[in-house]
């Protein structure tokens, strides 16, 4: 193992994948997370292993990342997904008018598709709205929002990474304009201490702006929450998406014995203050029922919000126009050394985000060690707790 030490702030999908990548490259890693791992946005996401089709028209960069990572994750995390594929369903004439652009987008991005007639679609998913005009099958899947990152963390631990949950970064250690570590509090004991680092990586998701400010740099991240509603029962086996430009309540992800309808989108300033607006819950039921009418009377299990870490200009109002693609900032560009931020993206693309970031980190350390996370099969999630 090299003597260089990297501290990662944030135990979400991004920080977990990065801990794994750096540990595989032989770098000493400490990951600090203020709560339980995945207690930020990651654990609360929709659980969709994206095929990329959702972004195939408007955000092709994202779409390509998704399909590539989708295929890689199937190899490195076998047994972790419900692989029933997904359908994009056209319910109205307007949806149908979107079909050509959608198919062209998927072709350009390398997303495999198969068009199904109304009858074929209803044979696969009998609860679909009988008005359905046609459907397109894509390689969507369901993931467990917590347990996939746990596999990254378990493998990282196995390779020597130190994972510290309930450990909150309170401030940065700086020498002049260089970050030299973090000052943390261990909430399980109340003790505060310093952790020295050659490089600190901010993987704090929608909190990234707050963390960056501690080091005196500005990161343009806008927390953009969405509401999700889980109902009892599986109304579908495949992921059901509305064939149209992305909108509210247009995806139903089946998972275990639940169906999860999502999502909406707005912007807030504080990712710790997310309410679950009543009208958004109603909207999820309404929009979900346009695709699967029986959802209208489904019994609710839970409704909650999670905040996307969207990169973009401040002042946006709906959050939907911001890019879904991730960004890695080397803050040397703003005159602060030893400090990198990785944010944006999706849980599906966490491995790719980690690869990009780890490339930046090893280059900054003057090393040349290639990424191996495309091939290495991850340990089971239970190994996170048993090591």
């Amino acid at each position, binding site marked *: 193992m090299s003597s260089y030490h990297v501290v990662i702030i944030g135990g979400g999908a991004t920080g977990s994948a990065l801990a794994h990548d750096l540990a595989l490259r032989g770098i000493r890693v400490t990951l600090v997370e203020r*709560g*339980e*791992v*995945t*207690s930020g946005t*990651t*654990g*609360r996401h929709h*659980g969709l292993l994206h095929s990329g089709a959702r972004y195939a028209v408007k955000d092709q960069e994202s779409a390509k990342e998704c399909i590539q990572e989708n295929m890689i994750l199937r190899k490195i995390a076998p*047994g*972790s*997904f*419900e*692989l*029933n*594929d997904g359908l994009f369903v056209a319910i109205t004439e307007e949806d149908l008018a979107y079909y050509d652009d959608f198919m062209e987008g998927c072709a350009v991005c390398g997303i495999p598709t*198969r068009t199904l007639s109304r009858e074929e679609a209803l*044979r*696969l*998913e*009998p*609860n679909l709205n009988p008005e359905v005009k046609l459907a397109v*099958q894509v390689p969507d899947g*369901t993931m*467990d*929002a*917590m*347990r996939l990152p746990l596999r990254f963390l378990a493998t990282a631990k196995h390779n020597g990474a130190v994972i510290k949950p*309930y450990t909150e970064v309170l401030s940065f250690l700086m020498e002049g304009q260089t970050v030299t570590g973090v000052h943390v509090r*261990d*909430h*399980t*004991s*109340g003790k505060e201490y310093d952790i020295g680092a050659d490089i600190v990586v901010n993987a704090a998701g929608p909190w990234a702006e707050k963390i960056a400010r501690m080091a005196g740099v500005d990161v343009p991240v806008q927390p953009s929450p969405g509401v*999700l509603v*889980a109902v009892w*029962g*599986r109304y*579908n*086996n*495949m992921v059901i998406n509305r064939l149209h430009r992305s909108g509210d309540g247009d995806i139903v992800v089946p*998972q*275990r*014995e*639940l169906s*999860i309808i999502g999502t909406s989108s707005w912007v807030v300033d504080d990712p*710790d*203050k997310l309410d679950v607006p*009543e009208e958004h819950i109603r909207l999820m039921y309404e929009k979900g029922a346009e695709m699967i009418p029986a959802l209208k009377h489904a019994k609710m*299990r*839970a*409704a*909650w919000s*999670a905040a996307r870490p969207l990169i973009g200009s401040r002042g946006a109002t709906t959050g939907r126009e911001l890019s879904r693609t991730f960004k890695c900032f080397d803050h040397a560009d703003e005159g602060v050394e030893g400090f990198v931020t990785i944010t944006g993206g999706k849980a599906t693309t966490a491995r790719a985000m980690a690869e990009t970031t780890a490339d930046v980190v090893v280059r900054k350390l003057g090393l040349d060690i290639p990424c191996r996370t495309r091939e290495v099969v991850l340990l*089971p*999630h*239970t*190994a996170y*707790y*048993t090591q």
Partner: protein
Amino acid sequence: MSEQKVTFRVFRYKQGDTAPHYDTFTVTVNERTTVLEALQAIRRDQDGTLVIRHSCHHASCGTCGMRVNGKEVLACVTNVLELGTPTVTVEPLQNAPLISDLVVDMGPFYETFSQAHLPFVRRSEYLPDAEVAEGVPFHMRFESCIECGLCVSACPVVASDAEYLGPAALAAVWRVVQEPRGTEVPPLLDWVNSEHGCWRCHVALECSEVCPSNVDPGGNIMALRQELVRRALGLSHG
């Protein structure tokens, strides 16, 4: 929505403390507020040192298990006002080493549970008449058990016999017997066919009562016993 003030009596403990104590907080809640949301509000607005476990907020990850008014629940799907008590007492799970406040160490739970080698994905029994899409081998879904440990906390036998395999692991073994998916069944049956295995259970079903995820661990233990008897008599599983 109407708002109401509710008192929370919260179990507190930090590493190095000689003994735990309780702190009291008042939280404004509405008809929808869950115990988890109330605890997050306490941490955000009143005491940033409160340690809680949570992740999915919809009864899927199993991290937010705790005892609310003495009963094992998932905090994320426990509605505060529906509890109907002016004071809500919140304590960590039992039968697991305490880390801090409401958080216990799940290491021992997973040590036992993982020995069942339960695959995470199973055949889905939902929509049996639906056709399976081209390229998909069969309809699949995640196992119901969310590894929350509520059953282990509620089990009186775990409390008195530290070596008892406990309801979650035994239920997981039954799922493997039902649908082996490549896992070898006989060694697992040997594992549970023991003094600290499925014969230790008292069948009072406290575990099934608290299970939030339709596993019915007590019922699975009964099924395991029947399977062992059947095999002892030389009858095959069916």
